[in-house]
Structure formats: structure tokens, C-alpha cells
């Protein structure tokens, strides 16, 4: 374990391991809610925030001392509200709200980057992640964010679960649907933004969606889904970390590819085994759909 002598590698590993827990956990909710693209929309918005920060920092010098990621977090947070608004505005074409937000976000981000003259190596690290760019302060901030998010997930577990499966029924049962939705969007936004340093804007959603999608296929209860998702997520993070250190591959890229391999292996294994276990929530969802 000689590489752990370098400070930045230690921080990168710590951050990676923390993200490997919270991102797949958020992913389980995201996947069961059937809004997997929301993570993409949020991470792309973080790019807008980062770009905006870089542009502003070329005028306001004091800003350049701050990590642009914080502006990214702010932007994702705001946009999570915008997505909820658009979902209601488009009604008949709800699924449009996410591509629309995503598209506008990158477009605006690219304009800011152009204005800041920022098409350089730093931007590349934001896009695809790098284990070389983190420091102790990032590790502390991401640690706090992870702890708070996990705590909130635990506290509101029942509400989130209920809402994920059946929004209308949850509303009937007196759960403040809108507030819980906003809370969830807020937590996801913060988790997405804090994963960017290691994974990169374009690959955050991989660690959110893929482990959860794989877990969905093997888990027999909802709780075990979290466990599987975290195990898959951590495996991918560790693989990405070592590939990045020893073979100089992109850390975010390797994490995404390994997550995808895990998912593929599970799908194939399921096909070979030829038997699908009963997954109560999935069945319930299907019969719901059939009844409509």
C-alpha cells in the first residue's frame, strides 16, 4: 500500500469510499422512483455552476480561492426545484422536463466556459473526474455531506419508500408529498455535486444508476437492495481508483465501466440461470400499471 503515502491519494480514496456509499443509496431511490435521468440533469447543472464560477472568477479575483464545486452544489440545488416545476408545467409530457433542463444547463455551461476561456485541463478533470484534484478540505466537506445525507435518508426512510412506490397512495395517507419530493431532490443534488471531483460531471450518474440497477435484479427485499448497491458501488470505486493510479486511466471512466460490467454480468447470469425470483415491489408496480 505504498501509494497511500501520498496525501492526495489518501484523500481521494477516502472521498471515493464515502461516495461509493451515498451515491448508490440515493440511486436505489432514484431507480425505484423511475426517474433515473434526474441524476444526469443535476450533474450537468453542476457543470453550469462550475463554469459560471470560473467565468466570474476571471473578474472577481477573490472567487478563485474557492472551489468551483460549491457553486456547482448551489446550482444543482436550485435546479432541483426547477425540475419539479417543469414536471408540473409539462403535464402530458412530463418526461420532457429532464432533457430540457439538461440541455439548457450544458448549453449555458458551455457558453460560460467559452467566456472564461476555460477549455483546458482543469475543465477536463471536471468532466471526467480525477483523483489528483482533491484535498483535505474537500474530504471534510464531502464527509459532512455524506453523513448528513445518510442521516436524512434514515430519518425519512418510510416516507421516501412510500413515495417511491406510489405517489398517489402516499398523498392519500397524509404524507406531505411535495415537501418530501423537494427534500429528496435536495439530497440528491448535494450528493451528485460532491461526487463530481472523483467521477466527473459526465459520469456521476453512472455510480448512482448502475449499481442500483444491478441491485434491483439480484435483491429479494428492498433493504437488501441498498446493501447490494453499496457493495457494487464500492467495488467499482476501488477498481477505478487502482486503474487510475497504476494504469493512468480515467478514474470516472473506469468506475462507470466496472459498474456497467457488474450489471452486464448479473443480467447474463440471470439469463443463464433462467429463473427470476419474485420481487414483490416490481410485481406490485406492474399490476398497478395493468390496472390503470
Amino acid at each position, binding site marked *: 500500500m505504498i501509494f497511500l503515502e501520498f496525501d492526495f491519494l489518501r484523500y481521494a480514496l477516502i472521498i471515493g469510499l464515502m461516495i461509493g456509499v451515498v451515491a448508490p443509496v440515493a440511486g436505489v431511490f432514484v431507480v425505484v422512483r423511475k426517474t433515473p435521468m434526474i441524476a444526469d440533469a443535476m450533474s450537468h447543472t453542476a457543470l453550469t455552476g462550475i463554469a459560471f464560477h470560473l467565468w466570474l472568477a476571471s473578474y472577481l479575483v477573490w472567487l478563485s480561492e474557492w472551489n468551483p464545486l460549491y457553486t456547482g452544489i448551489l446550482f444543482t440545488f436550485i435546479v432541483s426545484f426547477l425540475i419539479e416545476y417543469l414536471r408540473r408545467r409539462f403535464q402530458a409530457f412530463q418526461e420532457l422536463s429532464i432533457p*430540457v433542463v439538461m*440541455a439548457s444547463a450544458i448549453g449555458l455551461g458551455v457558453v460560460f466556459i467559452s467566456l472564461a476561456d476555460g477549455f483546458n485541463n482543469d475543465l477536463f478533470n471536471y468532466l471526467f473526474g480525477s483523483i489528483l484534484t482533491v484535498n483535505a478540505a474537500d474530504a471534510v466537506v464531502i464527509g459532512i455531506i455524506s453523513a448528513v445525507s445518510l442521516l436524512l435518508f434514515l430519518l425519512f426512510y418510510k416516507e421516501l419508500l412510500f413515495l417511491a412506490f406510489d405517489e398517489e397512495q402516499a398523498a392519500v395517507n397524509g404524507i406531505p408529498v411535495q415537501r418530501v419530493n423537494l427534500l429528496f431532490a435536495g439530497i440528491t443534488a448535494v450528493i451528485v455535486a460532491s461526487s463530481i471531483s472523483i467521477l466527473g460531471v459526465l*459520469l456521476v450518474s453512472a455510480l448512482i444508476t448502475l449499481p442500483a440497477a444491478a441491485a434491483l435484479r439480484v435483491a429479494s427485499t428492498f433493504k437488501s437492495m441498498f446493501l447490494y448497491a453499496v457493495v457494487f458501488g464500492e467495488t467499482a470505486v476501488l477498481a477505478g481508483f487502482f486503474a487510475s493510479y497504476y494504469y493512468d486511466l480515467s478514474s470516472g471512466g473506469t468506475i462507470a465501466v466496472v459498474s456497467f460490467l457488474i450489471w452486464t454480468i448479473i443480467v447474463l447470469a440471470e439469463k443463464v440461470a433462467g429463473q427470476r425470483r419474485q420481487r414483490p415491489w416490481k410485481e406490485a408496480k406492474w399490476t398497478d400499471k395493468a390496472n390503470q
Partner: protein
Amino acid sequence: MFDINFVERSIIAAVLIGLTAPLIGSFLVVRRSSLIADSLAHVTLTGVTAGVLAGNLQAFWDINPLYTGFLFAFAGSLIIERVRHTYGGFQELAAPILMAAAVGLSAVFMSISADGVTEWYGYLFGSVVSVQMEDLWFIGLMTIAALGLLAAFGRELMFLSFDEEMAAAAGIPVKVFNVLLAVLLAIVISASMQVVGVLLAGALITLPAAAAMQWASGFKRMLLIAVIIGEASVAAGVTGSILFGIASGGGTVVTAAFILFATLLLRTWINWKRNRRLKYERHQGA
């Protein structure tokens, strides 16, 4: 005859893309599969990075990476079509899974390749001013293919997009035309890569159609409005790129997004006015 400068090349490329992207986008939006555009665009990126990497590793490999991009997009579109049918309950997972795998693989290819970051930025965010003559040929060819297919099968595709079950009942070979639509999408995306970039190709496909949907009373009119919005957006993008050095994809998509949001606000205002008038008239009548 073909001695045209970079400004003319970029304008021609932009006009062609501003035409085809919103057209195919309108079909996707009414078919409710606008997310597919984004995932396919990312698969195209994998193809391009694979092409560039092959060029790095093998001296004899001298193929424009746009073609490998198209090949990958084509394969990706077929995979998506398959997954859409086999997954049933969780089919909306197919797009993000493919997208994540595609970007991940692209990132790995990029980190292996010796090329510097600036080359990738052109593919990611579009750089219309660097369109070469051979790229223009590629774009032209793809545009002709797309328009030809749309002209020949537009009616069937429209029927299919609005109501797949009805189309099947009416005897349209749904599977074939779904694949055709996916192929069309692959064509348009790989052609639009240099104008708007991989990350923004989905935007130029979706945004004008989404805005047009708010105004149009019929599908044909929707196509027309979408194309007008698309052309206006690429015009702004090219202008910004040539005059101010803004990445062409950014300017294009911000314009399209601005038109969409202005549309939404205007529609909300019009609806509010109408509701108030109706209320007033009802009040007068009573």
C-alpha cells in the same frame, strides 16, 4: 468549385443540421422517447474516441472518426430498440445505463489516447468553424439520407410515434419502422456532432420540438415551427462562434432553450388572460 472558406463551410453545416435535427426531434418528442437522443449522442462519442484511439495505435488506420461514431450510434440505436421491448417495466432504465457505459468507455479511451484535451473539446461541445471539406461531405450525405427516409416514410413514422398500438393494428410493420426511426436518429446525431457537439446534440434535437409543440395545432405545423426554431438557434450559434469565439454548441442550445422558456412564459400568460376573460364573460352572463 469547392473552394469555399471556413465561414461558408460552417454556415452550410449549421443550416443542414438546423433542418434535420428538429425534424427527427419532433417524432421523438411525440413518441415520448426524447431521452434516447442523449444516450445515442453519448454512444457516438464512444465511437469517435474509439476511432481516434485506433488512429493513434495503428499507423494504417486513416478513417475520419465521424464514421466510427456513426457506426457506434447505429449499433447503439439497435440495442436501445431491443432493450425498449425486452424490459417492459423498467425500460426507462435502458437509456441511462447505455449512456453511463458509453461515457465511461469514452473516458477510458480518451485517457489511453495520446491526443490532447483540445481535440476532444471540439467533439464534446461542437466547433463549427473547424468543419473541413470532408466533414461537410459527411454531413451532406447524412442529411440527404435522413431527408430521403423522412420523405419516403414520414407518414408511417408519424402514425407510429403517436400511437404504436394503433399503427400496429393498422398493419404498419411497427418493428421495422421503430428500427428505421432509430437509424434516422443515429444519422442525425453523427452528422450534428461537429456543429453542436456530442453533449448538445440531444438538445438541438429535443428543445425546438418541445417549443414547437406549445404552438402547433397539427403535426405538420409542428415540424415547420421546430425547423424554424432550429435554424434560428444554429444561426445564433454560428454567429457567436465566428464573432465571439463561443463554442458553437453552447450558443445554439442556449438560443433554443431561451426560445423554449420564452414560449412557456408566453403560453402561461396567454392562458391566464384567456381564463380571466372567460371568467369575466361568465360573470357578465350570469
